[in-house]
């Protein structure tokens, strides 16, 4: 196998493994395992960015930022949020069996849709190369799985994990769609996610203190 094919193969393998970590983060019922799956995904993203960096040198900076924000800070905040409390996720709206089926359908449909209609999202020539095409399809799948988790999970901490996946999906798409993004913009986008997670977990800490639970179904005081 020539080095280029090997490189493409490596990128595609990493991309597809990302989807598996997303499913694990969504479906694991123990929050610490779910966070661990997210951490694995973050490491894979750093690996993926380093692989792409051979094509686009600016991605080395992006990889370093992702290492700090996604691999170190975000999981640290999440683990701190569940420290000393029962880490079993509150029963979600959709049970395990149907949820796995929905997740599988989402994966297949979003991956196929983006892979098939990539020109709609990626008008540039570079983004239409095979590896970037796979990357974009994986990005949209991770985004969809994150959105699914946010919408169907009643545990606020799990919803934050879903939000992190959603953001990972968008950030992955930047590799294909916005390779020339300046370092300042990349840093701004990445650091904002960390601050969002920190603030959300801080407010969730208050919710746990005042409501005695992180069950979003109990947040009904302001219902219309």
């Amino acid at each position, binding site marked *: 196998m020539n080095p280029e094919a090997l490189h493409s193969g490596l990128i595609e393998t990493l991309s597809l493994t990302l989807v598996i970590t997303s499913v694990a983060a969504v479906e694991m019922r123990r929050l610490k395992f779910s966070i661990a799956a997210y951490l694995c995904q973050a490491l894979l993203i750093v690996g993926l960015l380093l692989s792409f960096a051979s094509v686009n040198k600016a991605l080395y900076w992006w990889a370093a930022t992702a290492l700090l924000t996604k691999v170190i800070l975000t999981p640290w905040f999440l683990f701190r949020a569940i420290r000393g409390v029962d880490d079993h996720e509150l029963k979600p709206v959709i049970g395990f069996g149907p949820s796995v089926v929905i997740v599988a359908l989402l994966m297949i449909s979003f991956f196929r849709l983006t892979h098939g*209609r990539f*020109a*709609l*999202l*990626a*008008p*540039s*020539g570079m*983004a239409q190369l095979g590896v970037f095409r796979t990357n974009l399809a994986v990005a949209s799948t991770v*985004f969809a799985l994150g*959105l699914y988790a*946010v919408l169907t999970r009643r545990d*606020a901490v799990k*919803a934050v994990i879903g*939000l992190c996946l*959603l*953001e990972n999906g*968008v950030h992955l*798409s*930047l590799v294909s*769609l*916005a390779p*020339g*993004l*300046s370092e*300042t*913009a990349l840093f*701004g*986008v990445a650091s*904002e996610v960390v*601050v*969002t997670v920190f*603030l*959300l977990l*801080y*407010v*969730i800490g*208050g*919710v746990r203190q*005042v*409501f005695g639970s992180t069950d*979003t179904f109990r*947040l*009904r*005081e*302001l219902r*219309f």
Partner: protein
Amino acid sequence: MPGEALTQTSVLPAAVFLLPVLAGVVLISATRASRVLQQWISVLTMVTVTGLGAWMARQILRGFVLTTWNQELRVDALSALMVVIIGGIGLLASIYSLRYIEERTGKNLVASRTHTFYGLLMWFLGTMLWGCVTNNVIMLYVAIEATTLTSGLLVAFYWDRRALEAGYKYLMLLTIGITFALFGCVLLYAGAAATNKLDGASALLISDIRRVTQFIPGGTAAVTIAFLIIGFGTKAGIAPFHPWLPDAHAEAPAPISVLLSGVMIKMSLYALARTVSPFYPAWPQVTIFIVALGTFTMLLGIILALTQNDLKRLLAYSSVSQMGYVLAGVGLGTYLGCYGGLYHLVNHALAKSLLFMCVGAVMYATGARRISELGGLKHQMPITSACYFLGALALAGFPPLNGFWSKLTIYLALARAGLWWAAGIAILASILTAVVMVRAGYRVFWGNGPSVDAPSPSFKEVPAGMFVPMMILAAICVLLGVYPQAPYPLLHRAAAVLATLGR
């Protein structure tokens, strides 16, 4: 239409947002500084920011566009208009908060948290100003998300059940919504870069992207517009993406409600108009969709307001409705529509800030905010009562108040574009607004209290520090009604920036 503006390098665009950000750093760090010092730092910062905004507006009116940092920051008439509004309303909200925040949070809490309140307030204003002066499409997203992050803890400031619920929903829903905007901004950049008419760096600049949007492929343009509308529309409170708005605007402290309803949602609509309007010449059908969304928003918002018993929620739903007018105006893409939309953006900022201050004054004096628990306050709170009715009538578009002229301009623009159905819905929503606002005011200030037999408690008018900002806003509403041409020079240039479909 104004001629081609001359570009001038200036430190003003950077200074106008860095100043409150730095003041915020000082305030957050100054845990041992006295409360009075913290408050005056914030007021003086906003006085300076308002002065800088006025100075920038003067430069713009002399035919300049101000830029700095390799065009990363750029202030044209539209940005200057937004800076003046944010600076002015921010200053009045800061003054209003001096007495309000002490009374509403209790002495012990104030001692430990005023520095956080004023620090976050400065950051909130600073990030809004940053969003208005940035010319980088990705940093526009970053700035708008930053406004959510800086205001999230302000929404949850009281840290009770209701505030925490509102804070959680606010942070969660707006972050999800704005992620769509990031996707939209990235696609806008990718689409512009793929036209091969811009180099890498300039494809990030909104002022350059405007020149090449017609070359972006149709499918990409459609997906981009959809993501931008969902993303920025969520933050602007456009229906059906508005559910976060009544909770957050109602549960935040009154000075923050003033900023959320008065300026923050406008700033998001500004971002929407900036990024979507360049597509109109190539995709005029988008304007019909946006006008339809605007009319749906104005009608749904006011219908939901009709059923409210909580004064702050009522005002929040009315903000949803009024944003529909602004969206319908600027969404038309014509000069008249953009002029009316931007004029209403200014007028709504003034009237809604005034109304939230009046409701804050009622809460300050009585501790209640449900209409059914209030009544007969006109003798005890005459200034608040007069200011409320002025704001309510201005909002409803009664002549000769300011809201009348902006709404009339929007009706005319819709009719001129042949969208009579939209003009009809806009007029109907205005009538409903008058009913909702006057009925609520009548019951609170003129009606009987909850128990006619019980002796009336002795409430009194709020302190001068609170009613003076209210009187200033009420006076501006009257002045702009009697002299509607006053903001014309700046509005004319700002409308010309957005009007991509001619007159």
